[in-house]
Structure formats: structure tokens, C-alpha cells
């Protein structure tokens, strides 16, 4: 009798439980784009801005603000004062718009729709400078003039509306992505430069461009395969990703010095995207893949050379990894 009881408790019930747990997990596959957020762990001095389904979503410790732009193809957004600048990506082109705080279009900053598919343009990856006067972005807009059919780096002056090309990649190399302004030196723009090695293997390097000196400096090596960098608010640290193989990434942090990066160290491995510093030292936000269904927003601190106190900020899943987000400073 004891044996039968033991069999039921320690064999039959676990067997049935295992089956139903697996069955329950099997049902959690569909992507739910109606993401919910747990904002209590966002620092009181931070605002996180992102977009989903055409909505501009602002997250602060106090809660969530959502503004519908009626542009469901909005893929990137960032706050500028009380307004927003966003990228609307259509089938053959993308445009850069300025939206009001209620989501209405105030201004078309760059229009990729020329009406002719052969001359349409891509405008993506906008990054605003610390004084909110210029936007760096990448585009293929000069493809007819340069025969460079990859994304080059441009800067748009928000006051005059003029656009200046800053850096051109080699023809067909892969192009430039993810520009960011140095927070303490207005002449420096850093970006990811994608290329092929001699054996046709793709790699990426984080480069720094000095606008005044017109010089380029590699901050990382070809072997590192680095991308998606972000500076700390004081410009003394940089966080970025390295591609280990075709699937996983390392999150790397380093000190920024006049002679390049020092103390380069990995703080985590996983399927990460867009690590960003908050305004507090050693505190970051980032996206991380969950199963196969998309990306969730996390916050964590860096202590003893590793990520600690990782906390999930989005629930109900899922953010798309290619949308990214922007962390900005607000008054407490």
C-alpha cells in the first residue's frame, strides 16, 4: 500500500504535472503586442521613450503615457523638449517627422517619398545632440551621386533645415548604423561601421568621427564585432554589444580615455539589444530576447563586473528589438 501511495505522489503526479506544465508553456507562443509596463523600478530621474503600434510610449517611475500618432509604421522615436521626432517606415522609403506631445505631425523633417521608387530614400537611426539643435541620422539619400548604395552618416540642423553628409562608407561595404553624439564633446559622433573581411565574413567596428578635424578613430577592433554603443552621461564610460557568433551577444563596458577604450570587460552574455546608461552611475536599461517571441525591457545595475538586480520593466510581452528606446533625464 505504501508503495502504491509513493508511486502516486512521486511518480504519477509529477508525470501529469510535467505534461500540463509543458502544455501550458506550449500555448505561450503568440506575440502580444499590447505590452504592459511595470514602471516602479525606473529611476525617478529617468524617462524612457519608445514606440509600439504607432504609439509613442513614455515611461517614468510615476507611470505610462501613451500617445497615438496614427502612424502604425512608426519604428523609432525620441523626445525633443515636449515634442517627439520619429521615423515612419513605409514599404519603399522612410521619413523623419516631428510630432507634437499629442501625436500630431508638426513638421516633415526629411521626406523619403519622392514618388519614384528608384529615387526614394531611407532615413533611419536619428540621434539628437546634447543641445537639441542637430540630429545625426543614416540614409542612402546620396546613392545617385556617390555610387555608395549603403547608408551614410548625415547631420540635420534643426534651425536651418540644412543637411550635411558627415561620413561615407566604402561602396557596398555594409554601411553605417546607430550614430550617437558624445555627451561632452559636440564635435564627436560615434557610429557602427559594417564591413566584410577578406574572406567575405561580415564584421562591425564602432568608429568615432571628429567633425572639426575630419578624422576617424576606431574605438573597437574588427575581431570584437562591436555595435550599438552608448555613452554614460559624463562620457567617461561606453557600453556596447559584441557578437560572439551569429546568435548570442556579449554586453561590454569600457572606460573612455583620450587614448581609446581601456578596461574593456564583458558584463553579461545573452540576446541583448540597445544597452543604455541611466543618469545614475552603473545603472543601465536594455532589451533582452525572451524565448522566441520578441524583446523585453529590463533595468539592472553593474556591480563586481557583472549585471545585478536585473528587473523586468515590460510585462505581457513583447517589444520589437529593432525599435529600440531612448533614456532621457527628467526633473524629480
Amino acid at each position: 500500500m505504501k508503495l502504491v501511495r509513493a508511486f502516486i505522489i512521486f511518480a504519477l503526479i509529477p508525470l501529469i504535472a510535467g505534461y500540463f506544465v509543458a502544455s501550458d508553456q506550449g500555448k505561450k507562443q503568440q506575440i502580444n503586442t499590447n505590452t504592459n509596463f511595470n514602471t516602479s523600478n525606473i529611476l525617478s530621474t529617468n524617462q524612457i521613450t519608445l514606440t509600439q503600434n504607432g504609439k509613442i510610449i513614455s515611461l517614468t517611475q510615476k507611470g505610462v503615457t501613451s500617445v497615438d500618432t496614427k502612424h502604425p509604421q512608426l519604428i523609432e522615436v525620441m523626445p525633443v523638449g515636449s515634442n517627439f521626432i520619429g521615423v515612419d517606415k513605409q514599404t519603399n522609403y522612410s521619413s523623419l517627422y516631428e510630432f507634437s506631445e499629442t501625436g500630431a505631425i508638426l513638421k516633415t523633417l526629411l521626406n523619403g517619398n519622392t514618388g519614384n521608387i528608384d529615387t526614394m530614400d531611407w532615413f533611419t537611426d536619428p540621434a539628437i545632440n546634447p543641445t537639441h539643435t542637430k540630429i545625426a541620422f543614416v540614409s542612402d539619400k546620396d546613392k545617385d551621386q556617390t555610387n555608395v548604395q549603403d547608408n551614410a552618416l548625415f547631420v540635420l540642423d534643426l534651425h536651418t533645415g540644412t543637411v550635411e553628409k558627415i561620413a561615407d562608407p566604402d561602396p557596398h561595404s555594409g554601411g553605417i548604423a546607430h550614430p550617437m553624439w558624445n555627451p561632452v564633446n559636440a564635435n564627436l559622433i560615434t557610429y557602427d561601421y559594417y564591413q566584410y573581411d577578406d574572406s567575405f565574413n561580415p564584421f562591425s567596428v564602432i568608429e568615432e568621427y571628429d567633425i572639426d578635424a575630419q578624422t576617424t578613430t576606431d574605438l573597437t577592433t574588427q575581431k570584437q564585432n562591436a555595435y550599438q554603443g552608448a555613452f554614460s552621461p559624463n562620457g567617461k564610460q561606453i557600453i556596447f554589444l559584441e557578437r560572439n557568433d551569429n546568435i548570442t551577444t556579449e554586453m561590454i563596458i569600457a572606460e573612455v580615455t583620450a587614448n581609446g577604450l581601456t578596461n574593456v570587460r564583458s558584463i553579461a552574455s545573452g540576446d541583448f539589444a540597445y544597452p543604455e546608461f541611466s543618469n545614475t552611475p552603473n545603472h543601465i536599461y536594455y532589451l533582452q530576447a525572451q524565448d522566441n517571441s520578441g524583446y523585453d525591457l529590463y533595468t539592472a545595475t553593474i556591480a563586481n563586473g557583472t549585471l545585478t538586480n536585473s528587473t523586468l520593466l515590460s510585462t505581457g510581452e513583447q517589444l520589437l528589438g529593432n525599435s529600440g528606446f531612448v533614456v532621457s533625464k527628467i526633473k524629480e
Partner: protein
Amino acid sequence: MNNDYDIPHLERHTPQTKKEKPFFVRFLLCIFCAIIFFGLGYGIFFLQKFQGFIAANTGQKVTVKTNNAKVSLPSITEPTNQENILLLGSDNDQKFSGSNPLTQTMMVVHIDYDTKKVVMFSIPRDLWIQKPDGDYGKIDQAAEEDGIPSAIAVVEQTFGIHIDHYAWVGLYGFIKSIDAVGGVNLQVIHPVLDYSYPTDINSSNPYGYQRLDIQPGMQHMDGEQALQYVRSRHEDVVGDFGRTQRQRQLLLTMKDTILTSPASLEQFPTLFNSLNGQIKTDLTPPMALQLGSLFLTNKIVPQQETLSIPDDSQIGWSTDQQSIVIGNATASAQLISNLFGSQAGQTTFNSLVSVQDIASQSAEGQ
């Protein structure tokens, strides 16, 4: 019988039966037992899903023997030695009207059951070869003539290997397969800008084209987006080599997706109900089940590195002005020899030297 009186007797004959294990040992055994059976139940669920996947694919039924609480799992008997499976992919888009499409993707999956390793060997679609009938042509054109058997024949002849099994998938099958597992988280390793990507899938204008901009970094893609990523090649400076790399990357990612996200197996029955002829294979249900079981239980492990015709092969032009890949005979023979054995390497060398001669003669004649 009173045990108090029989202790000497029992101890003498069956001492173990009365000596109970300490409580913590019994407790640990029970917990261990519970964990094992929990895992077994968990595994049974996904095994059933996997069997549905196989059965739906082939139209044949795979049964799990059950007898009340007693469950009989299919035994995993590892085949001996090695096996080559030819994976084929075709652009059977809306423009295609024939019965045998080109096989733009050709990959030999080499399984070594002794070393438990799986190596994928990619064949460039533009590889210039001598066909079994003596004519020359691109390797992807073989299937166009007499279907999959022709594709198998040229691969066997060119590389001196035996193809044991094949699996073919068309564009719609590819899209549905990705969608059925909920899309795929993909690390875009290189930006893709394409100014003339064909609009020949679910389009009112199959002869039209569109512009693509796929930005680097981690992305979640649905089936159509993933197809764009692995199919585009127009603005890629390394042409088909770049595309082949992206295809191999997706295959490895999909394998990882299925292994690390068992939830995706839930979608297999739906997938195979919807595929309906978009996948063709000669793998029987037991073979496919066995192969899948070996993968899922890590009895065989795909290598991260995927091999292809060496990069120092030449990109040239045929006499009828087709862009072709002329394989480096020496380097390719060395690679094939390492992978499939010296006899296969010698055959490869002979095949590609023959092609190089013809190509150089064509160049001289022009």
C-alpha cells in the same frame, strides 16, 4: 512470524530487506524520482507534438504506445557511421509556371553518428559544373531538367558523395514554417539594402520590385521578413556568398529556436496542415522522428561553423554570359576530402579541374 524473534535468521539470509535506508536518503530518492517523472511528463508532451509534426509532414501516422499509466517511448537507435541529407530551396514564386523550379539553395547536411557531429556544407547556386549528360551548366539548373533526382545526381557526381535523403522547401513553405513557430529572433549581422527585391510573393504585380532596408542588430522577424533577409543579394558586394552566410545563419538560429523554445513545437501540427506540398522529402516518419529525437536529445550536435566552396573560387562568366562561380579545385578537394573522405575529394578535384579547363578555354575564345 514475529520479527523480534527472527532477527538472527533474517539477518543471516536477507539482511538488506530489513535494514531501512536513512530518512534523508529515502527523501532524496523520492524527490529525485519526482523530478525524473516530471521531466518525463514534460518530454512526453513535446514528443507527441513532434510526432504530430512528422505525421502531418508525411501524411502517415506515428503512434505512441500507451497502456494506462505505462507509456512506451520510441527507442532511439543510433544509425551507424554517416549520412548525407541534401537540403534544397527553390524560388517557386508567382512568376514560376513550370513543374521543376531551380534550386537556389543547396546544402548537404553531413551527419557523423560516430563523432556525433553535424556539418553543413553549402553549395553556391552559381557553381559551374559538368552535368551527368556531359553538358555544362550552373548546379542550380539541374533540378529544372528532371526535378529533385537530377539535383541529387549532380551533387553526387560533382562531389563524389552519396546522398542518402533529401528535403525540399519552396518560398511559401519557408514563410509558413517561420510563421508557424512564431517568427524568429535573428541577429542581423550585416545591413541589407536592396533596391530591386522582387515582389513576387502574395503580390498583385509579381514582376515588380521593392526596396529593402534591413538594419543590423537583434530583430524579431516573421516569415516574410526572414525570407527577405535570406533571399536578398542585389546590393551585397560579396553577392551569393553573403546570402549563403545569411541562409546558414537562419538555419542555425531556427534549430536553436526549436531546441530552446519548446513552445514552438506546439505549432507544428498547424504548420504541416498548412504546408500542403510546400515541403518534399523522402524521409519516412520513423526516420524523421529518429533524426529529430537525436537532435533534441543532443545525440548529434550541429557545428557552428558551416562549410562552403572555398572563398578563393572565382566569380566569372559563362560563354552565354551567365554569372558563374568556378570552384577552386585544389582547395575544394581538400575541404571535401576532410569532410567526406579522400575518394570524394579526388572526385571533386577531377570535376572542378574539368570545369576550370572549359572555363579557361571559353575565356581564351572570347
